[in-house]
């Protein structure tokens, strides 16, 4: 602790969450810019397409789903979470009363809050793209499903949260004791190399086929596991300016 003032742990975390949520808000503006760029790039093609050729007729369907916006948001969460653990962000922690553990908990809470806002930004980007499309391609527009279901909304939040949690864990691993650093590098190498060497080893089909809520539940459990590990590593780390 940097202060001798008697403050409860809960109050410290609360103050840090408020402080960090304000301090890192530029991260959300970067998500908007990313979504606008990718939305513009995929404006005419959509997230996927399918084609049917019969006789002298070729029918092409450009499908506008949430996939690409979700992938971009998840990657953004992953990178932003890593950035939260970098030196420049850690120095900001010195401006307020904090310990490594309270800082880690605050980071987690900010990440969860940002995941929720990221889904709102993602949906805004999607509907702005569709709005533009409805003005430009009115004659060839087919509306199958306009309103997102609550279960898909939950899947989106939990997916972004999961990638954020992995990013945060990834960042904390490289700050922790040497044994954690080495085991993280080995684990990372296995994760990257094994699908290339043993392509049949990785089979995500059973997970994808789970119902939306069960899939979200699985993501939440993995996220909680990552967050717990983050707090544990932060607790083991020494307080330093490195």
């Amino acid at each position: 602790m940097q202060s001798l003032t008697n403050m409860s742990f809960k109050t410290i975390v609360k103050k840090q969450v408020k402080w960090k949520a304000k301090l890192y808000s530029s991260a959300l503006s970067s998500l908007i810019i990313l979504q606008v760029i990718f939305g513009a790039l995929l404006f005419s093609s959509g997230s996927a397409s399918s084609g049917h050729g019969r006789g002298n007729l070729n029918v092409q369907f450009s499908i506008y789903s949430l996939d690409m916006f979700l992938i971009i948001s998840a990657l953004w969460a992953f990178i932003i979470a890593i950035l939260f653990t970098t030196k420049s962000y850690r120095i900001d922690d010195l401006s307020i009363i904090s310990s490594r553990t309270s800082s880690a908990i605050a980071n987690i809470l900010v990440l969860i809050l940002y995941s929720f806002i990221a889904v709102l930004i993602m949906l805004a980007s999607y509907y702005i793209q569709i709005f533009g499309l409805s003005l430009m391609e009115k004659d060839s527009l087919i509306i199958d499903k306009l309103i997102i279901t609550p279960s898909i909304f939950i899947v989106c939040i939990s997916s972004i949260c999961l990638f954020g949690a992995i990013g945060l864990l990834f960042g904390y691993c490289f700050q922790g004791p040497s044994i954690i650093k080495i085991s993280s590098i080995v684990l990372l190498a296995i994760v990257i190399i094994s699908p290339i060497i043993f392509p049949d080893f990785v089979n995500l089909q059973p997970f994808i086929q789970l119902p939306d809520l069960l899939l979200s539940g699985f993501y939440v459990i993995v996220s909680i596991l990552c967050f717990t590990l983050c707090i544990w590593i932060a607790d083991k780390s020494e307080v330093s300016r490195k």
Partner: protein
Amino acid sequence: MTNITVLLLSLLIPILLVIVVLFVLRKVSNKTKNFWTLKHLSIGITAYIAVGLFALLYLSFFGDSSIQVLSKSELKKIEKNIESIQKYDQEYNSSFLTDNYKKKTWETDFLGGALPVIINNADSNLNIRHLNNDNIPAGKVLVTYYQFPAIIDGIDISDKISLPNVYMSQNQLWIEALSRNEVNFHRIKASLGILDFNRKVDLDDDYPSTIFYLSSNFIVIETPRGTDIEDSQGVIQYLR
């Protein structure tokens, strides 16, 4: 390249793009720090979400599509109808050729008791039939194009199928299918395609959403009784 390598590459490219954009933004934000205060950022983010909400409301109230996705019961009805058309055609029965499906009629004259018919692009799956019609005076020929429903992914695309060129030249009837035609549709599905695709939502349904038989269009040549059709390519069938 294996599927996993393609998957890794397709993930790496967006990651790299995201990193590049974030890097550029960080550099730019250092210069625009004075402008992008917390207040301005909050206003910007809220405004962006509000614009998205406005877009959703606009689409909900005014975003009606002129193209309708057919319901299961409609698809069932159409499939039954097309099956009966095929049955009639196989039995050389012309009663399936009703005015509802008539798209265009060409009326032309010819000389002599036989009409040579030439079909260009014979491989374009045009169904050409010959029918004797007692009401047509000698030396006249009627060519009628019938278009039956053609459904792809629940959408009736029969209106998008272009008509063939039909004309008389050197006392020969020419039927020319148009060159390859491409139609593009934009489908809005506010869900996650990767989940829908892998769960095979459409395939699990009791009914197929694509009903497109090669017999979805017919060109019928009507001549007075006693007129012969010279079909050197052997693609014309007769109807009663």
